[in-house]
């Protein structure tokens, strides 16, 4: 798959491209983790974290692949570093090799500061509690990139109502996040 298709697919969250990238890069990561004291469950968890990190960096304009193997290399590097960090944290001495510091630093460049990361995690938590209609509306607009016209047709609303409801849902989500953050209550 060419570099532009990979990049646009990641940026636009094109499901077919995301699945292709996910499926084609998993075996190498699994091989590394199984060869370094891990299990298939470890490989699954670490790989998904790495995949999300790469996707997030593309969303935040912090990573743009420069060649056709860049996405594969970046996923592998992040997964490798995450697994080695995990091994170190449990003081497991069976690690076959350690990454060089430069590549480690590059792959682990913070995407967001702690406050931003905390806010993002709260958004994800509270989004799950938002209620089906709002979740569906926001999912259609922000993830599936449907237009307001398409969303209005789906819900049998006018376009103006769809836009208004989208704002209300966003505002509700924002209030839930702020309440949780400031008071620890939903």
């Amino acid at each position: 798959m060419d570099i532009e298709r990979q990049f646009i697919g990641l940026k636009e969250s094109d499901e077919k491209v995301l699945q292709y990238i996910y499926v084609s890069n998993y075996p190498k990561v699994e091989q590394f983790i199984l060869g370094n004291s891990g299990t298939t469950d470890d490989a699954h968890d670490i790989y998904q974290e790495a995949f999300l990190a790469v996707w997030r960096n593309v969303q935040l304009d912090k990573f743009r692949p420069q060649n056709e193997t860049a996405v594969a290399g970046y996923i592998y590097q992040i997964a490798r570093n995450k697994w080695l960090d995990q091994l170190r944290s449990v003081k497991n001495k069976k690690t076959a090799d350690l990454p060089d510091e430069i590549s480690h630093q590059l792959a682990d460049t913070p995407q967001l500061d702690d406050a931003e990361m905390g806010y993002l995690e709260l958004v994800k938590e509270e989004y799950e509690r938002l209620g089906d209609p709002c979740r569906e509306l926001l999912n259609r607009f922000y993830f599936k990139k449907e237009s307001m016209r398409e969303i209005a047709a789906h819900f049998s609303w006018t376009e103006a109502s769809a836009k208004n409801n989208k704002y209300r849902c966003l505002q509700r989500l924002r209030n839930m996040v702020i309440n949780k953050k400031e008071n620890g209550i939903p």
Partner: protein
Amino acid sequence: MKQEYDISPDEFDLIERYLGKTLTGEESVAFEKRLQEEPVWKEKVNEVNLLMLGIRETALVEKLEGFHHALAGESLIKKTKPVISMARVWLVAASCIALLGLGYWWLMGNESKYEKMYAAYYQPDPGLPTTMSVANNYQFDKGMVAYKAGDYREATDIWLGLSQSMPANDSLFYFLGMAELALQHRDKALNYLKPLADDPQKPYSKEACWYSGLLLLKEGKTEEATAFIRRSQHPESKKLLLELNQ
């Protein structure tokens, strides 16, 4: 990040358009100026960005398990070489047909009786587990990963390169046939499938019979199609033959 401010609908809209890079040149200049001059505006932009990112990320996380299922059976520790249970393949294909059948009939309203039957019974072979092992197998598996992700053109590109070094590989020809069939390349698909279908001793002969039969049925060549479909012993073959005889 202290959210001691409100974000109005118009502000949400403007920030979204900025983040989506759809502001006009003039709007963009004014927006950037505001970002430089108003710290609160910068906070708002950052917050809306995180809200949007969180929504998208949650949606993606929900998709990841689905992606992982596409790898089912591919774990390196589970298998050392591709082995396929055809009963499982037929079962999956039958389930997919049951789920998608209604949709296909709806979509194919303007097509001939035989085209509708083809659409109702055709499901791509789900493919083989991959292992990423030695050189030739690695290339075959790479093609299989593309095939299973629905990238049939890339799969055929990879497998065609392999057909020079693996000239008599029936698995390779069968899946090249499957990829060409999915790409609706009728002649190429039949060229790969018919030699397998015509030799009952070959692996994938029955599967090749089923798909060759479906292709011929689509063209209204019912007699030839019936012979292939009967030989396929596919779980759906009896039902299809009954429909053909009605």
